[in-house]
């Protein structure tokens, strides 16, 4: 059940990202030649490097952000792949890797949230977007708004709490067997939602970066 839901949810979100990418292209038309695709990939890759123009704090923030993303990727792979691809529960060395990177992710995520909260705060622009949305004048919302990026940032920040707490609380002798089962299910499903939100967030961050470049 969980595996089916997860697979379909991830496919749908990735599909939406692809559709959105082509429906609302950033900047000039994409060069679909071989050379153009290689240049595009190199460009994407360089986005993960630290910009020369960043200050020390900026560099640290980006570094932490990148480590958080890396940890998140490892947590995703160790948490979802055994269940989705192999059909087995998380156990053995995979579990140890998962549990090792989880606190690192929590620390990095906390720093990133503190560091980027100011940038991602909602401003009057987003309020305007909301107003236009309510008046059904949502033209350009999907292409030019920062609302999605900020929304996914805060959503991810909110989701980290149940994902982390559901596991940490289960390690204390508070909840019985039924409670443990519920906490585990909560962890899984909140983690799934967090993955979906994170995919969207990373995509929108990259998109914003493209736009800035």
């Amino acid at each position: 059940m969980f595996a089916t839901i997860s697979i379909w949810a991830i496919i749908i979100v990735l599909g939406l990202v692809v559709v959105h990418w082509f429906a609302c292209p950033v900047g000039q038309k994409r060069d679909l030649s071989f050379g153009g695709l290689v240049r595009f990939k190199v460009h994407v890759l360089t986005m993960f490097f630290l910009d020369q123009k960043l200050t020390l704090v900026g560099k640290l923030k980006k570094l932490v952000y990148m480590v958080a993303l890396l940890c998140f990727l490892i947590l995703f792979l160790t948490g979802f792949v055994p269940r989705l691809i192999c059909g087995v529960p998380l156990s053995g060395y995979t579990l140890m890797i998962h549990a090792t990177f989880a606190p690192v992710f929590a620390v990095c995520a906390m720093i990133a949230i503190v560091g980027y909260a100011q940038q991602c705060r909602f401003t009057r622009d987003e309020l305007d977007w909301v107003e236009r949305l309510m008046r059904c004048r949502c033209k350009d919302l999907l292409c030019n708004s920062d609302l999605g990026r900020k929304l996914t940032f805060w959503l991810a920040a909110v989701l980290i709490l149940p994902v982390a707490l559901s596991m940490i609380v289960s390690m204390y002798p508070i909840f019985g067997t039924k409670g443990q089962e519920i906490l585990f299910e909560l962890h899984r499903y909140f983690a799934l939602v967090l993955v979906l939100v994170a995919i969207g967030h990373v995509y929108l961050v990259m998109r914003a970066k493209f736009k800035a470049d």
Partner: protein
Amino acid sequence: MVIGPAMAATAEKGLGDGNDGNRSEPVHWITLYDDLGNELKPGEKFPRPVSMKNTCGKCHDYATISGGWHFNSCRVPSDQSDPRVGEPWVLRDSATRTMIPVSNRGWDGAFRPEQIRLTGWQWIKQFGTHYPGGNYGEIPVDPDSETADPEAIIRQPISGLYEINCLVCHSADARQDQGSPDGAAMQVARQNYRWVATVGAGLGTVKGTASAIDEFSMPLEPDQTSLKIVEKITTTYDSRAFDPENKVFFDIVRQPPPQRCYFCHSTQTQIKKTEQVKVKSAEQEKIEQRQVDRTAELDWITDEDVHLASGLTCVDCHRNGDDHMITRGDTEQENEGRGAVSTLSCRGCHLGDETADAEAARKGGRLGAPHPRHAGIPTIHFTELSCTACHSGPVPAKEPEMVKTSRIHKLGLHGKHAIDLPLPHIMNPVFVRGQDHKIAPHKMFWPAFWAVETKEKITPMLPEDVAFLAEEPLQLTIQSEDRVNDWRPMTSEQIKQTLMAIQADMPEPEEENAAVPQAVYIAGGKVYKLNQTKPATENTEAEYEVVTADHEAARPYSWPIAHNVRPATQSLGAEGQCGDCHATDAPFFFGQVAMDTPVAEQGEQGWTQQPQTAAMVSFQDIDATYIGWFNWSFVFRPMMKITVLLCCAVIAAVLVLYGLRALGCLAGAVSDEW
């Protein structure tokens, strides 16, 4: 016959079978019958002993009862095996350094009696003292059979059949005597099988010893022997036990008290303490640190099972119907569509059986069993561990306790036939992954025996056969007091000489390409074999060395334990104590199991032995490196929990802060509009 109110006769069943619903116990003022089916008259000359088969069988379906768990192992077909391993019988002989686990149930690691050519007659001789009769004891020997044991053909008419002794379990009379110097066990030792029930029940005294009676002094016809034997082994009944109509009162209970079960199902922990002991030698007297056995003095400090302490009895859970197929507490046992049986297991009783038909059985809490919360225990524990892993047996220690059991060590025999059998060394608890793929506490010992290996298949030899072939190398004629870890020690050279002696007696295979049988010795988890280092020449004999190898048959024999159940507060992991099993040196995984063996080295200082051990994790189908790392992660777990909680607190604070600011912004924007 006077029968109490509970029993109702039916057309098909005996008077005593079934139950009409009245919960009172039926009174047993009954007439006794002898093994010939005649009414017993205690005052007559040379009265015969009482026959439980004929006495109890008048009202109860003896044939059905004899199919019950306690009596049916002889009927298990040789191709049938029971995956639920249990406590075996152990064929022991300290002289030949032999400890063979024996069972006819096809348990993994145990040998069937026929595999080691142990006949029913020999089986009873070996194990009959702790045994309720029936089974092999009741199989009449067929003199015309080619496989019949010659000794049994001659001796069985003298000793009689060892019928099921119903009173062993069902007598509530405190005089029921199994282990005293004049009790039932002594009759077994004397091969007075026919008289066991009479003496055990305290109905009278028996004089004479069947094993000492010369068969040539008896008639040739077995039937005549059976008739005449009561003149040589005489029974004197206690006239006070009989009423004027020669009826006897038996204090029979449907539900046997625990004391009855204990005679065969006791476990005693060996309490050894390191103490300073004065050691006197010819030259001097010195004080040494030694392990001193304090079991006898300190046995009183041990506790009984928490269920018994709370008022339950063994048979509250281990129940049976007329068929005497006693429920064994399996969680997987048949539900019978009602949940009535499946809820007689740990899980079923405490948690209920979700598949049961009855609402009550689904709810659990049978007999007042508390519903466990298991707070903070991740659910994977319930798929990886049996209930007993955390709740039963002694709390695991770095080295498992040594225990003795009634049946293996013949506990409960008193007086002149009391015996102190230190071997086999049974370790308890050893955490082993069982056939149900769950880790459970087990009792374990390392088999030791001489055997013949043919095509990787190992067949143990009977001790007497080994003794016959290798009397000299095993030094059987020498009375030696030397002991190493309770074993009579043996060097590699002795093993070599013994193996050569056995090998020399082995017939060459008749077929040219047939596998050559090879003599081997198994002990301490290894198989010892001969390896030819120099072939024989015209003038010299071949030279050999002893080499060791691993083999399936050398594995330790282990069987799961269920009792004693400890109180919940003493269970592993209680109150979030993960370290009970997940400390870096937790005995649950890293307890060291001694690989018990008689093999030792003899030097000028005497006998020495390099103790070898195996970590418990090696019996759990778990990678030791992995579990080592995994348990290491628990060192950092408290830090991890605090770190993540702090991170969550900061994230929550940021969310609240910016949430409030957003709310303020929203409020400002809304107010601007006005």
